[in-house]
């Protein structure tokens, strides 16, 4: 018992469809996007009504359901076609890359064309549609089919007069399909006030999908909506879808919650000076960057740098161009020294150049999704997003861009968008008002002064990045974009020649200043030297005087000594004969005595 429980859990985990909804088993259609909206596919073993007006793709959806079932999920299918023959169907879906003939050959598919023409059939009495059951049952059994397409069962209403019988038989048919556990798509033509012309939705209440197409300003958009899905949650909105060379793709859900991860990698913009404006490290990987500016301010050239830098790091890039062709962009970039051709040849760069008006916004978005899925780039350039404005209303464009940005964010792909701002409108308002959607906003602007037009660049915002608040002058040179410090002086901000002139003036002023200083220094030196000479002369004079004074002092001293000696001599000459005892007695003192003694010896 425990083992079986375990086994059950493990199968639940391995099958995502069962895991998503344990109550209702689902049957994956294999149609891109549809399984996401229905959270796993159509209700298994139950009929699903697909309705819509003529030409909206009901049959194609049904056929893809069968073909994908046969080729991808190992579930053979039966198509009961009331409108087209097997040959017609084969030809019709060959354009989607489906080879029905081969599938029929491999016993993966049976197409039974049920032909009914009102005028050729006479109704005489009671009847039922047992033969339809017989045919369907036979076809299902012959290949072990798991999927059925009834396209479109409403043709019966045109072919048979007895509506009551028909309705009862249809009800019986749908019940029969359920009993046989066949996952079925029943197509129905859109009615005036109802989902289907003949009220099929009364009998098919498990799952109802409505297809629609709208033409807005000559552009067609196909839409799909899951109206009802009993026993399961599902996406509620209208989702645009495409019918293309590889089948139907439905645009997946706009992510409602902002749950994408973030990346802390900082990437170089390719312009070193711009990197320094971003705190020296560039932008975050996976951020959305907007470059806005009036025409001719160098938006495309700047994005060229981003692309070349990314390719240089070995990353893959996609350029979605709505104004210029691939060749034109490559040529123009070469003129500023960026070689994109090299990266295209290396397979790192992919161009997608279309006129925006060729198809609707949804179509654009879907195509972009497809390219991104196929190419898996790390940088996507949309040049310009304003190009998309022509493909829809402002509201639509905004929501489309939101979805695009979300889509890229989820995959941590950096989005670089350029937008053209018209001269008259406020500079800090982009036409489509996507400023709040982006993380980094670079503004390029014209600076007109002194009879010339120069370019300025500044960072209007950069979420999570310390960035410069300065306006730099933006130069397009033959070796790429260069940023210069602008001149800020008394006269305000100067750019271009005015800046050059001012810089020259400044330089000469500085030179003059330097010369003045040199002159002053020279003068000072002169003075210093003159003074020091004076000091030396004075010193000399002082020394001379000192010497003279010394001499005088010496002379005076000699004089004094001499005087004293003379006096002594005189004294001794006076007392030597009178007192010879004095010297022998020795008791007498005083100079007179000594002198006398000296004089005595």
């Amino acid at each position, binding site marked *: 018992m425990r083992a079986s429980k375990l086994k059950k859990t493990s199968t639940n985990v391995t099958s995502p469809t069962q895991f998503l909804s344990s109550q209702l088993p689902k049957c994956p259609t294999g149609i891109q996007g549809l399984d996401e909206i229905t959270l796993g596919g159509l209700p298994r073993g139950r009929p699903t009504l697909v309705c819509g007006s003529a030409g909206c793709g009901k049959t194609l959806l049904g056929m893809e359901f069968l073909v994908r079932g046969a080729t991808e999920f190992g579930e053979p299918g039966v198509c009961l076609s009331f409108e087209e023959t097997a040959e017609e169907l084969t030809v019709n879906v060959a354009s989607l890359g489906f080879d029905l003939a081969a599938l029929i050959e491999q016993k993966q598919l049976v197409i*039974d064309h049920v032909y009914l023409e009102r005028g050729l059939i*006479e*109704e*005489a009495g009671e*009847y039922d549609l*047992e*033969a339809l059951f*017989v045919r369907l049952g*036979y076809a299902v059994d012959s290949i072990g089919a798991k999927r059925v397409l009834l396209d479109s069962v409403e043709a019966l209403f045109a072919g048979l007069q007895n509506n009551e019988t028909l309705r009862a038989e249809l009800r019986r048919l749908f019940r029969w399909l359920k009993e046989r556990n066949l996952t079925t798509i029943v197509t129905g033509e859109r009615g005036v006030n109802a989902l289907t012309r003949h009220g099929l939705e009364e009998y098919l209440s498990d799952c109802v999908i409505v297809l629609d197409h709208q033409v807005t300003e000559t552009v067609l958009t196909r839409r799909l909506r899951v109206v009802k899905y009993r026993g399961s949650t599902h996406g509620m909105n209208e989702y645009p879808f495409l019918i293309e060379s590889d089948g139907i793709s439905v645009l997946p859900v706009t992510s409602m919650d902002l749950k994408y991860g973030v990346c802390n990698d900082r990437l170089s913009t390719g312009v070193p000076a711009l990197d320094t404006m971003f705190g020296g490290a560039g932008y975050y990987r996976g951020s959305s960057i907007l470059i806005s500016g009036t025409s001719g301010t160098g938006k495309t050239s700047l994005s060229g740098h981003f692309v070349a830098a990314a390719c240089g790091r070995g990353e893959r890039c996609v350029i979605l161009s709505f104004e210029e062709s691939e060749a034109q962009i490559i040529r123009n970039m070469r003129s500023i020294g960026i070689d994109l051709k090299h990266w295209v040849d290396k397979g790192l760069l992919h161009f997608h150049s279309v006129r925006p008006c060729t198809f609707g916004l949804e179509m654009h978005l879907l195509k972009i999704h497809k390219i991104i899925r196929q190419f898996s780039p790390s940088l996507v350039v949309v040049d310009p997003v304003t190009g998309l404005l022509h493909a829809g209303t402002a509201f639509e464009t905004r929501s489309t861009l939101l979805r695009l940005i979300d889509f890229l964010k989820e995959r941590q792909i950096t989005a670089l968008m350029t937008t053209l701002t018209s001269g008259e409108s406020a500079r800090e308002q982009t036409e489509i008002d996507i400023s709040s959607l982006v993380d980094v906003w670079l503004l390029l602007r014209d600076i007109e002064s002194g009879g010339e037009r120069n370019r300025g660049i500044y960072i209007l915002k950069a979420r999570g990045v310390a960035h410069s608040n300065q306006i730099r002058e933006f130069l397009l040179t033959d070796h790429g974009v260069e940023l210069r410090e602008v001149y800020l002086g008394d006269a305000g901000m100067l750019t271009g020649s005015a800046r050059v002139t001012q810089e020259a003036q400044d330089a000469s002023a500085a030179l003059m200043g330097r010369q003045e200083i040199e002159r002053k220094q020279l003068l000072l030196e002169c003075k210093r030297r003159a003074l020091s000479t004076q000091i030396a002369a004075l010193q000399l004079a002082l020394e001379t005087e000192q010497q003279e004074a010394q001499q005088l002092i010496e002379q005076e001293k000699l004089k004094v000594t001499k005087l004293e000696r003379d006096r002594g001599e005189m004294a001794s000459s006076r007392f030597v004969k009178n007192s010879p005892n004095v010297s022998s007695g020795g008791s007498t003192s005083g100079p007179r005595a000594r002198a006398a003694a000296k004089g005595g010896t």
Partner: protein
Amino acid sequence: MQSGSRRTGNPPVAKWELKLYVAGQTAKSLQAFVNLKRICDEHLAGEYRIEIIDLLLNPQLAAGDQILALPTLVRKLPEPVRKIIGDLSNTERVLVGLDLQRQQSASSQ
């Protein structure tokens, strides 16, 4: 009506060749056969042959002859092929369907 297809009527090569498609011996299919036999004997005595095809036994035949409703009567000969569905209880509609109405009115004139 045990076999998949059973022939009723006299001549081996008949002017009128009719096929009645049924699915088993239901009340409707029995009723249709009885009604058909009656109409044929009345209007096409000696000129017809009826083949009964049971789709429960030969389901593959349903698609080939584009059979949808049961019972279905198919007039193979004379050309063109015509189809009548139902238990053939409405004789007038059967005659219209078999294109016998006109012949009858033409012979009565």
